[in-house]
């Protein structure tokens, strides 16, 4: 449905698009990291695009991602970027949708912030930073939004131990540091 959006994007910003794909009726454009702000500005301001509705920002951790029925060479390995930052946009004028994806590595998890272009992304980028540790450059107020400031690590990363709690307060007769459990 929104294939024409992908075509227009490739035609005007061909140097910024790594590749495009379509899955289950959703059009996905993989964008180069340094071109993201320009592409987003164009998607919002061009009257033929008019993506006025920011839907969500999230991140996908591909660590040890190995889908069933796919050869191991196509799963995740050390040579591939670990995180995918996902921006979902919608145009209420043309009734089209597009998903922007940016691949970032574990060593340099940085993405330019789109909070200045769509202010609704402000808290969503904070959430993504809180849960995955992806830094959004140029974000006006990049702090944790769900977890407390004392929390160490990023809980939705796949290598965060599932039940590792970091208590703020305990009863006087209980240790503040939880009992160490062997994590399988």
């Amino acid at each position, binding site marked *: 449905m929104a294939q024409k959006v992908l075509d227009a994007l490739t035609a005007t910003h061909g140097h910024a698009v790594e590749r495009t794909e379509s899955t289950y009726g959703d059009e996905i454009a993989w964008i180069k990291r340094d071109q993201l702000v320009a592409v987003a500005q164009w998607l919002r301001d061009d009257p033929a695009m008019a993506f006025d509705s920011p839907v969500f920002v999230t991140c996908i951790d591909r660590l040890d991602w190995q889908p069933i029925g796919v050869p191991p060479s196509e799963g995740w390995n050390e040579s591939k970027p670990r995180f995918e930052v996902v921006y979902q946009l919608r145009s209420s004028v043309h009734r089209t949708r597009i998903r922007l994806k940016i691949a970032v590595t574990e060593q340099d998890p940085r993405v330019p912030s789109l909070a200045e272009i769509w202010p609704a992304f402000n808290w969503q980028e904070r959430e993504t930073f809180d849960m995955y540790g992806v830094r959004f450059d140029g974000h006006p107020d990049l702090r944790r939004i*769900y*977890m*407390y400031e004392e929390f160490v690590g990023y*809980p939705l990363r796949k290598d*965060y131990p*599932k*039940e*590792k*709690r*970091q*208590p*703020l*307060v*305990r*009863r006087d007769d*209980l240790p503040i540091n939880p009992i160490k459990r062997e994590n399988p």
Partner: protein
Amino acid sequence: MGVELTTTRIEDAAKWAKQSLVERGSNWGRKFSLFTYPFVTACCGMEFMSVAGPKYDIARFGAEFPRFSPRQSDLLMVVGTITEKQGPALKRVFDQMAEPKWVIAFGVCASTGGFYQNYSAMPGCDQVIPVDVYIPGCPPRPEQVLDALILLMDRIQHGRGHSQLRTKREELIAAAPEE
């Protein structure tokens, strides 16, 4: 003394006889005038409203009056999931309540964390505050809540609530001769 003694268990009778008349009277007054502080955080709150509503009517047991100030209440009902981030707030609410005070953990999430065994949920509010009665269930039936309340009232009468025992212990320690 004019006090009716109705019990079927010898131990209960012995405990009753051991209490002084003042303690007996004050505990009797306490157990029928529990002022509830509902610390409602999650879906168990619906069931709590059902208990407080006219059909099950917790007012029959003298605990009908929710006070939304911890300084005016003596029964803390922890209703729903407690996260680690909420721990300091819960402890502060409990510390602000005047002695003697009692705590009921309402539902499995408040008792043990329930199925939230993850990085953010506290494994039971007894990690932060002492709990007198635990109510299982997800959410518990109103009858279970009333059962727990009757159990708590029984404990209050016998001076076996957590804060009452602590006060007694502190009095004993203060009264003990120094060695």
